[in-house]
């Protein structure tokens, strides 16, 4: 099964130091929240970016999703702070 592309925006991107990366697809029962926890465990910028999950928002294949959504067969997961457009 194909890898999963992660994309980061705003201070999440800055803390991690990259705007995109590919990771191995997580287990079938993984949710956005469990993947974020696994990424935070990498330490460094990841730990910093993902220290407070309540300050994060996510989109799967360009649709906003709650943090407990299963990743399923999505191709792209975006992680970012709450949006501030308009």
């Amino acid at each position, binding site marked *: 099964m194909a890898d999963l592309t992660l*994309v980061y*925006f*705003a*201070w999440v991107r800055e803390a991690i130091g990259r705007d995109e990366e590919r990771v191995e697809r997580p287990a079938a029962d993984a949710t956005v929240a469990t993947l974020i926890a696994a990424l935070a465990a990498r330490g460094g910028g990841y730990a910093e970016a993902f220290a407070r999950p309540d300050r994060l928002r996510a*989109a799967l294949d*360009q649709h*906003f999703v709650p943090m407990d959504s299963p990743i399923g067969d999505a191709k*792209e997961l*975006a992680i*970012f*702070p*709450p*949006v*501030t*457009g*308009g």
Partner: protein
Amino acid sequence: MNRVSIQAEDFDPAVELAALEASGGGGVASFTGIVRGEGGLVALELEHYPAMTMAQVERIVAEASDRWPLLGVRVIHRFGRLEPGERIVFVGTASRHRTAALEACAFLIDWLKSRAPFWKKEHFADRTEWVEARVEDDAKAESWKR
């Protein structure tokens, strides 16, 4: 008659209003957002999620068209570096009825604030700062829920 642009360039509200006025409705409402130069702000930097932005804004516009009898909707949202006084966003609506035009315009700008994938970073002379989402903005958008 609905059109969305996500662009770095400036735009001309007059051109947009003229097109909406020509749509045959009795009323045209608009909102233009401008960069405020407060607290020594040097520039605002807008980042967005290109793969998502256009589709998401078009969904918001479709929702507005679904809820109000609109003859035309125009949304322009800029990204990149903007200085105080520059335009950030434009929402224009045309309808036979003034209330529909005004409400849809307010709905759209509220939803852009809390549902369009943009992030603002403030540049000051000596530091930069990501703008925090405001709880009120989210509450405003939620208040439109049916």
